[in-house]
């Protein structure tokens, strides 16, 4: 359990903040262009940045001390994040490696698993990804078809996973697979730690709308995983997956205690320069309509920051149940949609064409809008978050399901589930 507030046996938050400020200033490069690149060079750079945090004694602020972390509270982590905004940080390590997968390992891993994997993660040596979605569907995660058959001390995996971001450049995955076909779908799943680059795993990159090749599909052909790499209990992978998804919603929403520094530009400060820059580029900052839009975009950031604070504090104190994480995931995604819309409106015709290799702020906003729905899909779609809010947070009827209480081998599957 992570402390939300500093306790007496911890370094006082303000002392920690002062130390962090001095360390960051002395060590971390200033935030420049390219922090948002999805390139391999950038990924290597982020491993180095994480190593700098580790060497300076600032990696894993809320991780347990015995596994290489600092064992401090979320207050310390927030102070560090606030101080880190002017600097280049290992942003993409935060999600999913630290905020989702390492967080799940802290919760469910055995002592040996944690000793073995967490320090490497905190040193920036290992990137982790999630092998959850499959070609047959991602929303109905418990309906996954990848199979794991036990053979003595190992499991043999066969099947395919898809949409795993940057798997080709990563080291380990948490992979959900079916170990029992004779029970209803939620009761026959197991979560595995899988080394990505090993015999039997083929990784193919998929081109996304923005031209990047980050998305991957993996094919498993008799992949061997030792039984010691099962996370949680055999056939109880759904419990692990459900908690993983809670960590994911928090992390993607910007409220994870396990990240260091801002993730995906969520720093709660509400500053947003891109949209303002676009208005300046277009010369419309005095236009009353544009001013209303600029204010709306800014207010959305501010409200988002306050909502994350409210929900994460509420979840930590028990005032709100875990499904409340879906509120910030949904808010974050709808914010991206609306802010993208505002960006397009302000950029105007600037999104259409630009001098060779100089898209300017307007061109960047236009291109970013092409993949804006990604945020509303990754980590569970908006529709699924709405189901969760209504059914689990507000506690009202579950959707009718045609697969309840039926052995999974007898459940009907769609056309793409071959």
């Amino acid at each position, binding site marked *: 359990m992570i402390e939300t507030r500093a306790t007496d046996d911890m370094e006082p938050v303000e002392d920690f903040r002062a130390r962090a400020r001095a360390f960051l200033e002395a060590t971390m490069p200033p935030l420049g262009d390219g922090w948002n690149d999805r390139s391999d060079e950038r990924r290597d750079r982020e491993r180095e940045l994480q190593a700098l945090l580790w060497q300076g004694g600032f990696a894993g602020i809320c991780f347990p001390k015995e596994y290489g972390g600092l064992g401090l509270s979320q207050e310390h982590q927030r102070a560090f994040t606030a101080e880190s905004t002017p600097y280049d940080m290992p942003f993409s390590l935060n999600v999913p490696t630290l905020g989702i997968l390492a967080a799940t390992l802290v919760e469910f891993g055995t002592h040996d698993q944690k000793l073995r994997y967490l320090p490497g993660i905190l040193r920036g040596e290992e990137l982790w990804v999630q092998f959850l979605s499959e070609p047959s569907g991602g929303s109905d995660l418990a309906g996954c078809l990848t199979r794991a058959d036990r053979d003595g001390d190992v499991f043999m995996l066969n099947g395919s996973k898809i949409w795993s971001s940057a798997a080709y450049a990563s080291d380990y995955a948490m992979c959900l697979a079916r170990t029992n076909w004779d029970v209803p779908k939620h009761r026959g799943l197991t979560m595995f730690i899988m080394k990505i680059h090993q015999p039997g795993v083929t990784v193919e990159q998929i081109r996304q709308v923005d031209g990047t090749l980050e998305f991957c599909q993996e094919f498993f052909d008799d992949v061997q995983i030792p039984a010691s790499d099962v996370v949680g209990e055999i056939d109880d992978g759904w419990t692990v997956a459900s908690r993983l998804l809670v960590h994911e919603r928090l992390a993607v929403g910007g409220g994870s205690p396990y990240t260091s520094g801002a993730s995906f530009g969520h720093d709660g400060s*509400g500053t947003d320069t891109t949209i*303002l820059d676009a*208005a*300046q580029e277009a010369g419309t*900052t*005095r*236009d*009353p309509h544009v*001013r*209303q839009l*600029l*204010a*709306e975009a*800014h*207010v959305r950031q*501010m*409200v*988002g920051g*306050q*909502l994350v*604070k*409210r*929900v994460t*504090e*509420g979840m930590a*104190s028990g*005032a*709100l149940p875990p499904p409340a994480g879906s*509120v910030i995931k*949904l*808010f974050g995604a*709808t914010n991206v949609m609306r802010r993208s819309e505002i960006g397009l409106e302000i950029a105007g015709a600037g999104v259409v064409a630009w001098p060779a290799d100089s898209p300017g702020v307007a061109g960047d906003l236009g291109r970013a809008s092409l993949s804006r729905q990604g945020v509303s899909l990754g980590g569970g779609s908006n*529709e699924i*978050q*709405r*189901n969760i*809010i*209504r*059914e689990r*947070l*507000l506690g*009202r*009827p579950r*959707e*009718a399901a045609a697969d309840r209480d039926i052995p999974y081998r007898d459940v009907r599957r769609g056309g793409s589930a071959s």
Partner: protein
Amino acid sequence: MELQLSEEQDAFASTTRRFLAAECPTTAVRALEHEAAGFDRAVWAQGAALGGTSLLVPESLGGGCFSEHGLSDLVLAAEEMGRVLAAGPLVPVNVVAEAIAHHGSEEQHQRVLPGLLDGSAVAAWCGPAPVRATRDGESLVLSGRCSTVEAGAQADHLLVTALVDDQPTQVLLPADTPGVLVTPLDGLDLVRRFADIDISATVGPEAVVGAVGDAGPAIEHQGHIACVLQCAETVGAMDRVFEMTLEYLGDRYSFGRPLSSYQALKHRMADDKMHLESCHAIATAAARAVAQGSPDADEVVNAAKVWIGPHATELVQDCIQLHGGIGVTWEHDLHLYLRRVTVNRATYGTPEEHAERIARHLTGVTA
């Protein structure tokens, strides 16, 4: 509302809730529709006795609060009042009491505070928009109009902003000052009364609150308090409407299923819940920022006004839609809530005006 309250705050909130449930059900709001005052003075005095008008006044002057900042306590009452739409001049009385307590003379303290604190007197805050003032020896000659002043016709005291030599100054006038003409207005809310106040009067130096020309920061702070209380009230109203709708959708059936089981409606309620939580979050942040005197108080208050106003009307309208035909009847309470949040959206600054203040801050230029 804050998710975690201190014991004292929790006790205050539940006492207030019990009192309001007993004395201020929505039937009482309906009964007050044709009463000129729009609220019941006896009930108001009882609310005052519970602390409803004294939390922003220091103990030495007869007030006092439960936590470090009285405003953090008072927003709890405002939110509870919003839940039942309790009638009464909460915003103007508290804003004026705070102003007089912190900036008024001893004579003003003695003359005005006891009545406001025990609920026997009412004050109106005429807002930041100034009337003109010229000096005539020691006196000030005031002229101008204060528009749409909450509780203007019910007030015994008026706190008016005037420009003296172009500098913001506040004066406190007895409502029966010769030359003050109060015109009650009709309006959207069944019980919240507004009035236009025309002033053509000469007042002595004893009417000035604080120093002449020095009221700028105090006026800004008053505006912040008004917005924070109003936002808390609106969020309380939203919370109650959402709760009613959730219950209704569970009880009502179509095609052999409860309405709450239809995914299209479930998703609407999920979105409404998200907006409700976001309004709670920014209202709480604004209350904290103003209570603690943070440097970003103005920005957070503006953000709260920009965000909450339109989301409140949208949420209530959506809940009306989800109720079906009964939602647009006089009989159902929903319209009482819609009236209140629509009025709140446009008082103490519209969302657009507050957005413009944010834009000025962001761009560094004016429109």
